[in-house]
Every structure is written in C-alpha cells, then in structure tokens.
C-alpha cells in the first residue's frame, strides 16, 4: 500500500479505511490491525505536529515482507526533525506532574522493533518495522 494523504488530522479516517483494506488483503488478524493503526496514527500525528514547512501531502507506504511489517512515512520540503529524539515521557509521575505530550512515541517504541529517522534534501523519512513472527507484536 503506497499512497499520498493530506497533511491534516482529518486524513486519519481515510488512512484507517485504506489500512483496513491492506490488512484484509494480507489476511492479518485483529491484533495486528490494532497495533498497526496505533503506530501509524502516532507517527502521522507527530509528523504533522512537529515538522515545520511541508507540502500538503505526505506519503505513507506499508509493506509486508518475510514476516516484517514496514511502515514508511515521508514528509517533503520540511526542516529536519528527529522524531526518534523525543525524550521518553515519565509515565510513573503522579497525576499532578503528568504531561499529555510524549505518550504517542512511548507507545510506538513499545510496539516496533526498529524506528529509523532519515533526512535528505528536505525529505524526512520515518521507518518503523515490526517483526510479526518473532514478537507477535507483543512486547
């Protein structure tokens, strides 16, 4: 599945619909559907929130090969920002000190085996890989 989507939260509904189609085609189960949607949403919303500049469209490419599910998000004409550099949220802090931000990347890091950031000539690429055979995506 490779497709461009609007660089806006409202695109999420269309993304999820397309993910459902991909997951059904690949005969992946509900568990993987849940995790893949989480990972894609968290990466997509972080990208929209943090990247400066950017075209109206971002590219989402999802593939399954040799038991590895690969999610690639590309944002064009943006300034460098390393999503993997976001400091982990302190999830053990008490309610008074809890921050809402940072939860998404904490979720992503828990479910993916590799999270790679690349930046070249204005294009930011985030690649997340989940090994379905080794981990059953449960960590």
């Amino acid at each position: 599945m490779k497709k461009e989507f609007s660089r806006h939260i409202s695109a999420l509904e269309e993304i999820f619909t397309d993910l459902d189609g991909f997951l059904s085609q690949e005969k992946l189960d509900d568990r993987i559907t849940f995790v893949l949607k989480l990972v894609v949403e968290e990466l997509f919303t972080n990208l929209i929130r943090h990247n400066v500049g950017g075209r109206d469209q971002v590219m989402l490419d999802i593939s399954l090969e040799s038991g590895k599910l690969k999610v690639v998000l590309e944002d064009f004409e943006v300034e460098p920002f390393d999503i993997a550099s976001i400091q982990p949220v302190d999830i053990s802090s008490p309610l008074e000190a809890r921050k809402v931000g940072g939860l998404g990347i904490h979720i992503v890091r828990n479910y993916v085996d590799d999270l790679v950031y690349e930046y070249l000539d204005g294009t930011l690429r985030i690649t997340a890989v989940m090994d379905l055979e080794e981990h059953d995506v449960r960590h």
Partner: protein
Amino acid sequence: MDRLIIEEEQIEDIMLLKLHGLIDSGTAQFLEEKFNELTNGDSVRIVVDLQNVDYISSAGWGIFVGEIKGIRQREGDIKLASMRSDVREVFDLLEFNTLLTPYASSDEALAAFESEQNTKTTR
C-alpha cells in the same frame, strides 16, 4: 458513519457514558467537548463504559488524563469500565492504572461511586 458515538445515561448524580467506536486524533475532541459540557453543568461523577470501544490512541488517553485533574479538584472522578484487552494493554503500558482504577463493568464502577459516597456520609 460516526466514528465515535456517546450515549448518556443519568443515574442519580452519576453520568454513565457508553462509548461506541474509536477514540483517535480525529474523534478525541468530540470526547473532550462532552467532558467540558458535563463539567460545566456540574456533572463530575462520571463512568465511561468502553465495552464497545476497540481502539484508543494517545490522543484519547490524553483527554482522560487532562480531564481527571480538574474533575478530582471538584471532588469528582472518572471511572473507566469494561476495557477490551488491546485497549487495556495500552492503558497498562502508559501506567494509567496508577491514576485511574479500571473496573470490569459499569455496574462495578457505579457501585464504587456509591461506596465512596457512603464512606463520606458516615464519616
């Protein structure tokens, strides 16, 4: 088709919200608006039934954490009930069990409110 539907049921001074669908970055604002509407109307004892919610992203969890602070300052609470296993896994991953007590059912959550009220009354 609506991606998140919120049913309301008033049970004495407790508001039971039965949610259907998913809570993601696109629908979280709808939930936030519902909480704001309730708290503006002085409804601060809230049970959220998640039996028919199969997906909550960080945007959704952020709403619960954001709302609970103000609600507890007003001696209210949000009690989450009937979480599905995938949803519960993320709840545990974020260690929200240290902030919010999960309940197996709405009835249990409602009973917990009642029990707390009785404790206060008998003090």
